[in-house]
């Protein structure tokens, strides 16, 4: 992004205003991404709970089920389809994969309620603009978007325990993971207060990363060659889900197990046969 920084008026006195040069500088672009080591993840669910607490995602109603629930971070247990005792399974935390190219939810939204921040690469959802048509949910290949079928509900006491940095969403809008955008704002404000334009990586850590007891999630700037994530994604065992779609997701996974890497190209939804027979 080009920002107006200063007017270069060098030598303009002799040549007039026509020689006035507007100097622009390119603000450094970040591409925030994540990498999850599936061999370390044991499906404890700490990431999903920390995410819900951080982002004021309400608890379920009695009628809520796996299809109508709101889980920005949902951990799936994927079996290897072998029978006992050769069976194996892997826990896959699934959330918005922050697609970079032809982002499906952005292209289908009639309301411009989904935008990609050019400075961070984060796909953001703007609930105030959302019409609730759910095209984005249909378009998302990762099923990582959730619709508020009901008004959010907490007990009276729990309302006083909401995170003051994140607004709850109303009934009738779609929501999803935004890499804890509230924390990004806080980190930016802290950096600005310290007279810096660049945020300290330690100040911007999403809740799931912070809470993972197995240290299975790495977060950072993919554009920064020295960052831990930039190094980690170079591993030969690193892969992305449904990469064949060409949406260039910024969430990477890692596993030493070949069947897990192969599974990444399959759809995560169950077939009718799987629904019935497991």
């Amino acid at each position: 992004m080009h920002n107006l920084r200063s007017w270069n008026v060098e030598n303009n006195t002799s040549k007039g205003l026509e020689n006035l040069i507007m100097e622009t500088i390119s603000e450094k672009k970040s591409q925030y991404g994540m990498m999850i080591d599936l061999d370390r993840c044991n499906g404890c669910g700490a990431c999903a709970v920390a995410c819900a607490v951080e982002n004021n995602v309400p608890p379920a109603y009695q009628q809520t089920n796996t299809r109508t629930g709101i889980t920005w971070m949902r951990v799936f247990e994927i079996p290897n389809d072998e029978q006992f005792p050769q069976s194996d399974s892997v826990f896959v935390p699934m959330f918005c994969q922050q697609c970079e190219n032809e982002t499906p939810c952005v292209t289908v939204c009639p309301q411009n309620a989904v935008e990609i921040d050019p400075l961070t690469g984060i796909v953001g959802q703007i609930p105030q603009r959302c019409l609730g048509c759910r095209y984005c949910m249909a378009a998302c290949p990762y099923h990582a978007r959730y619709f508020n079928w009901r008004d959010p509900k907490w007990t009276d006491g729990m309302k006083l325990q909401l995170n003051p940095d994140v607004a709850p969403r109303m009934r009738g809008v779609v929501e999803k993971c935004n890499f804890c955008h509230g924390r990004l704002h806080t980190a930016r404000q802290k950096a600005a207060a310290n007279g810096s334009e660049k945020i300290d990586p330690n100040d911007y850590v999403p809740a799931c990363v912070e809470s993972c007891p197995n240290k299975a999630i790495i977060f950072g700037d993919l554009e920064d060659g020295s960052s831990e994530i930039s190094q980690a994604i170079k591993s030969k065992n690193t892969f992305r889900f449904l990469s064949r779609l060409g949406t260039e997701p910024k969430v990477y996974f890692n596993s030493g197990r070949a069947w897990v890497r192969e599974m990444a190209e399959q759809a995560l939804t169950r077939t009718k046969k799987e629904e019935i027979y497991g």
Partner: protein
Amino acid sequence: MNITRRNILKLIGGSAVGFFLTPLPYKVLDDSSIWTQNWSLTPPLPQGPVSIKYSNCTLCAAGCGVKAKCVNGIPCQLIGIPRHPIDNGALCARGLAGHHLVNHPLRVALPQKFLHKSPDSAMEPISFQTAVNEIASQIQKSNGAIAVFDQQPGRITSEIYFEFLNQLSNGIYATHPSREDATLSTLHEMIDKNNAKLGYDFENTQLIVSFGAPLLDDWGIPGRMRKIFGKRKESGLKLIQIESCQSRTALQSDVWLPIKPDTEYFAALAIANVLIKENLVLLAALRQITDFEKLKHAALQFTPAQYSEITGIDFSIIRQTANKLAQSKSAIVLSGPNPGAGPFNNETEKAIASLNILIGSIGTDGGIVIRDLQKENKNHIARNWNAIQDHSIEVLFIDSVDSGYALPWNLIERKLQPQHTIISLSPYLNEIAAHADYILPSPAPYESLVEVPAHVTSNVNSFSVAVPLFAKPETVIEPENLFKLITQSVGMQLEIPTTEEAVKQKAEKIFSTKRGSVFSYSDGTTKPVSEFLSADDLCKKLFEGAAWSDKPNNSHHPFRFTLNIAAPKNVPKTTNSLVLIPQGWKVAVSSSSISPILSKLFQESELRENAGTISINPETATRYRLRSNDTALLETEEGKMNVRVKLNTSIQPGVILASVGPALNETNFSDATYNDVLSLCTISDHGTWRITQAKVSKI
């Protein structure tokens, strides 16, 4: 101009087409998102100063350090303390939402009295004084025993219970058999001088053989276990998991031995068989055992082929396991039931514990080490709940602290006289409290000062304090204050210290030893105890948020062991009927012990199963004509209930894994949707309910 019908139709048609060329429909579409907004129905966000407080989680005995982000002094977010020396800065999923428990929908706000004995009977509020008078009257006229059931002995409150009961002629201070320290407490009973507190030296071990212990599913101190296993590539640690189900721990183990359900006893004896036959038992260990011949007789009773048939494991694999145990530089063998399934029976525990003695892992680095040598603790006199005579208790107090493991009501009920009075001190209307006559609510987690001693599995002593993060409501009463009122009402004399006084005494004791160091939560620094100026200085630091941890004991105490292992009488019969195994997740075995936000893992995803769900192998499902998401009838000798079926290829054919977990959010005990699978389990004389013969059929 003559206006014809055609002109009117053209105008209408043209207007209709033109309308879509104007911005109006798109504006309508656009604005409808604004007109339909209902932001007023979303709660306003709390506003006020943001602060940080430090405390310790008390949802289980691990007592992990907690950093709380507060708004207006009210915690809105919890996170672990980075670099914490005991829990490694990790909080489990339940701990991350532990601050919601003060506002739990099942919280009992006032002291209550049940109008009649039934879990769904009506309750009416009662004043503390009236309740105390009625309870005191019951105690005075009681002919049967008066008992306190404490699931976490060793606390200051436990001392109060003990002192109170000690003054009564018919008092029983009871506790439940250990779960996470089952192997340690079994070894404790085998040791000639039982003044040693034992712990696992996982940090230095090379091999762990686990009989069903969910080591990687929040067992013990979750952060400690995750740190140890997170570094296993570097440390070379190997895990052999012996378990009938492919649990999370089995999935992440190096070797998983899928044994037949409830044959752990025989698997342990089979390993002992190899160790003895192949002269792999250490000579020094042999000299320590007073009744080795009894063990030898038990282990050699069956042939390898018989062991293979009983356990379902090829004997060559058992042989390999035994050889690995004997050859490993350091090794630990331990047991630990799934939190839903109850403990192993005594014979199984003894067989598993004795393997540690045979390989000489007691008192060695990387084995089972002495955490502390101390004088006889009064709490060791706590009676095992299962050892209490049936139908003997007339007045029963049930302490509020939950062990995090399932507890069937039937297990409590069998010890009660027909005419009994139960007083629950739980802050929640949970499965056990629902059977009480009185609920006198204790403070919820983070509402009162609680001491956090070392975890039972820990290899070093530690101490920290869970300071309250919330103001305590006036309608709850701490157990020590309740017992103060009861002793006054009964006319007894009992000096009851406050927790604050007891913490100060503990700080003085630590200061006087000058041992260990104190880790500060606020700045992450560590300071040796010797550098504190006074005991008050140390105490102040503990209240601000700090953890004291001792150095490893490193003492090598010569022990002698009496194993007292009986030879197996019967070989388990193979039946065609299904086997029901309850399965749960530590602390989350009840709706009341977890935040409603945990629905993200249970109800809103398929990561964990709510109560009323069974998982079976597709092969079993085909046999009983069941399909995924069917509603089925689950029947045992104890009763029947409707369950939802889930298929899972990792479950042994013939096994039904029944979830012992929370009900759906907003479910009350009186709701038809609430199901308690524990009530279907057969409870053995040992007080175990690990397997039950069951039937399942499609509705």
